[in-house]
């Protein structure tokens, strides 16, 4: 219809309506309104990022917003109008995540190297400042004289005042029953209410150290909550220019090394460090550690075997059931199909935990019901544990293949089948030469995806065996059913709470590359299937 009218008379007013999106039609108004919303939200985001001083988020928001305005108001960016939202999702959720992982892989971010150097210095100074033994707790009055802050305490009823530069000295004044100075000659007392409500002042008061005497070794007064003071003494001194910490008691000088740790000239180290770039060290460490090499080879072999066998077994079982239940002679197919999908409907970790209980050699129902109470240690023997993992994963994943194969079977054209029947092909011949190859065309890419998924199937391993039973002949905490991803979890210490995120990120990238290569090769192979 519409083409007819267009051919008959290209009416000028129709033309202008069609262009309404870029001109002043009502479509433009809608676009303008929507873009106003986008801009409002974007500017709000930019302002929030500015307030939080999150410069990277700020920069990214500005770029995205300007780009959005350009894309949707320019006539030249038509294709981008469609792909721009997707592009942003790709950048934020995929490229950024990958890039950040790669960045972490080149650092030693992890236990003991978590913040910046300044924070490590802060921590070292906090940790080295100790209460002088036997120090009394003095009721305290914070006093000020103009901009100078001081502490006032009393000893035997005599008021003493000191500042950061002036050690405690006697001044006139009066004290209350608790010993807290209530009047200090020449100084104005800062009320606690004022102290607590003024963050900057409070910070100054917590940072203030008032020397007890001219001798620095006697320590200095500090307060934590503003109402009492105790004598503390710091054993470390920070030299801003030389970037060194000096222990005033032992004279040891701690300087920064290239791994983000303060090392003393006697070889001792301070507990808190900071993270630094270590280049490719995490990658080389992963392959050169002799303790890990041999167990990791075994783990890698099992990972491939596990991923391949899981996909193969669940595919074949799913296909078998799909073939059987695709036959119209089977009664109650709908009910049966629904029942078959049930394992797929439970969360995998719950299923794994359930099976862990059922496979218990003494109390589990598998041994009790099916093996006459025999003492078969399903999860304690290396080979039986491997078998159990494969079996439970088969139970978990065959419904997926049952679904996929059922769908694929139903979409095969009946004409091809009839042609084959007329040509005199038997059932087996039909399946082998027609059904199966055609099925593979649609399911092979899914099989590759499933392989990649199982390659990193952390849940089933962690919940069912936790990698165990342990190897007897190695010194590293890896086991017979560990796959690469659970091994990474163990090696990098994330499991024990002493995480080395740098190493974990590096190993994850290695696994990512392996899975990527395997998948790429497999996809190339499946293209050949389409030639049938």
């Amino acid at each position, binding site marked *: 219809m*519409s083409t007819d009218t267009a051919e008959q008379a290209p009416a000028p007013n129709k033309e202008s309506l069609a262009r309404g*999106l870029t001109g002043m*039609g009502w479509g433009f108004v*809608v676009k303008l309104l*929507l873009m106003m919303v*986008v801009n409002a*939200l974007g500017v709000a*985001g930019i302002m*929030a990022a500015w*307030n*939080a*001083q999150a410069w990277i*988020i700020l920069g990214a*928001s500005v770029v995205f*917003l300007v780009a*959005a305005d350009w894309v949707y108001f320019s006539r030249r960016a038509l294709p981008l*109008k*469609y792909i*721009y939202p*997707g592009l*942003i*999702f790709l950048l*934020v959720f995929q490229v950024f995540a990958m890039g950040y992982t790669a960045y972490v892989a080149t650092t030693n971010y992890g*236990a*003991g190297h*978590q*913040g910046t150097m300044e*924070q*490590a210095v*802060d*921590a070292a100074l*906090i*940790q080295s400042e100790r*209460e002088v033994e036997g120090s009394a707790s003095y009721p305290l009055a914070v006093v000020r004289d103009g901009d100078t802050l001081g502490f006032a305490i009393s000893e035997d009823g005599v008021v003493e005042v000191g500042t950061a530069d002036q050690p405690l000295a006697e001044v006139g004044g009066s004290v209350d029953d608790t010993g807290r100075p209530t009047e200090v000659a020449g100084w104005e007392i800062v009320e606690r209410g*004022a*102290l*607590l*409500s*003024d*963050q900057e002042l*409070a*910070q100054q*008061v*917590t940072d203030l150290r008032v020397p007890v005497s001219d001798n620095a070794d006697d320590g200095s007064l500090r307060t*934590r909550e503003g109402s*009492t003071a105790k004598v503390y003494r710091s054993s470390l001194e920070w030299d801003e220019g030389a970037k060194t910490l000096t222990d005033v008691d032992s004279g040891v000088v701690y300087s920064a090394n290239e791994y983000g740790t303060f090392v003393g000239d006697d070889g001792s180290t301070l507990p*808190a460090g900071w993270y630094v770039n270590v280049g490719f060290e995490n990658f080389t460490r992963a392959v050169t550690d002799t*303790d890990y090499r041999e167990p990791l080879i075994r783990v890698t072999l099992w990972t491939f075997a596990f991923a391949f066998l899981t996909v193969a077994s669940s595919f074949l079982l799913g296909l078998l059931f799909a073939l059987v239940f695709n036959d119209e002679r089977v009664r109650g197919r709908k009910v049966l199909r629904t029942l078959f999908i049930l394992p797929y409907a439970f969360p995998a970790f719950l299923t794994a935990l359930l099976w*862990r209980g059922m496979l*218990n050699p003494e109390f589990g129902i598998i041994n009790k019901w099916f093996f006459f109470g025999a003492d078969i240690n399903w999860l*304690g023997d290396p080979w039986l544990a491997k078998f159990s993992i494969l079996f439970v994963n088969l139970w978990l994943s065959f419904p997926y293949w049952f679904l996929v194969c059922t769908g694929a079977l139903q979409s095969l054209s009946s004409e091809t089948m009839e042609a084959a029947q007329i040509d005199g092909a038997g059932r087996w011949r039909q399946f082998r030469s027609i059904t199966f190859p055609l099925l593979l065309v649609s399911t092979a890419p899914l099989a590759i995806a499933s392989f990649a998924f199982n390659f990193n199937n952390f849940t089933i391993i962690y919940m069912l065996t936790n990698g*165990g*039973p*342990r190897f007897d002949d190695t*010194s*590293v*905490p890896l086991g017979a059913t560990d796959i690469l991803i659970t091994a990474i979890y163990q090696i990098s210490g994330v499991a*024990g*709470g*002493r995480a080395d995120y740098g190493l974990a990120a590096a190993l994850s990238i290695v696994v990512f590359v392996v899975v990527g290569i395997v998948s790429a090769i497999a996809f190339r192979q499946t293209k050949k299937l389409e030639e049938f």
Partner: protein
Amino acid sequence: MRNTIGKVAVLATSVALLAACSSGTTEETTSAEPSSSATETSSGIDATGLTLTVWTDENRQPAIEAAAATFEEETGATVELVQKNFEDIRADFLAQVPTGEGPDITIGAHDWLGALVEAGVVNTVDLGASASSFAQVAVDAMTYDGQVYGLPYSTEAVALIQNTDLVGTEAPATWDDMIAAGEESGAERAFCINVNGETGDGYTMYPFQTSFGAPVFVQEGGSYTSEVGMGGEAGEAFATWLSENGEKGAGHISTTVDYATNNTLFNKGKCAYTVAGPWALGDFADVNFTVNPVPSAGGETAAPFVGVQGFYVSSQSENALLANEFLTNYIATTDAMQALYDADPRLPAFEGVDTASAPFPDAIAGFQASAEQGVPMPSIPEMGSVWDFWNAAEAKIIKGADPVKTWNKMITDLTASLEG
């Protein structure tokens, strides 16, 4: 016309997507706003109250809320309670304090302390005037390298739980006495203990290990060194004992028993004795029980690990003064401690808390007795590397591996791993 509508629809969807995307960024950044608004007020012109951010978990929230209300009333400051999963707090605190997004105060367990100190995210605290009201073991646990980093409020430890219908209320003096009494009672099993299945559970087994004089790390003046202390003859004796009572031996200790199984067995009256923590009491609804200290198996005192919970102050807090004020004057009080106890009954670490309100008041006394003979769980960061080796070796020995060989290999591997 149709064409136009189509285009508008496409545009609308993509703009909606865009909006969703950019609003995502907004959300992320606005969550950081409290800290920035706090900075604004620091100019000192308008002191309408500062915000103290406190991380807590679901159970403790009501109690801290009550303390916070008093604090807000008296000081005018605002306390923002952030409820988190307890398991997430450690990692989140470690990750967020260095970025400046962390809280001023968090609730936490004492065995995180080594990692927190190593990451430089905690400040030291002063227990203030009420220092003497805290249980010594709790203060020791919150002490690292001679400095107190946390304000403790509760302790917890495993203890011997016995079925009073089977074996009465009397505490057995030794392991052998206990097994004899258990066997005499006619129960299916004299004793059962959680081994965490094939994984092994050094934590629950620890009182028996210490009764052989084999602590995980050597202790020096109250704090742990990083020197492994469970090797040598004492450790071998414990390993041998474990093997004798394991699956190939007397069968009292078995890797077929995990936490849930153990609780079910005891609750059904199939075990006369078990070792468990106060957190398991809820599972023992169908059985009459009493709680006693764990009996010694190797002659020395059976000292369980004592876990302590308390409050940490962030080293990057901009409100350190306020945070310390809150802890020492509003949490370290009998009322606040009582409220914490009523909200989530754990053994109190503060004098003067009335434990009668607990669901199992008698049991609390038993756990208290057990904790008193316990040792703090090591909080040094090295402890994180121990569990894997230690648990696995115990599981293997229980399953019948050569005890001395397996134990010594574990010590060698562990020492090598710690030297890293």
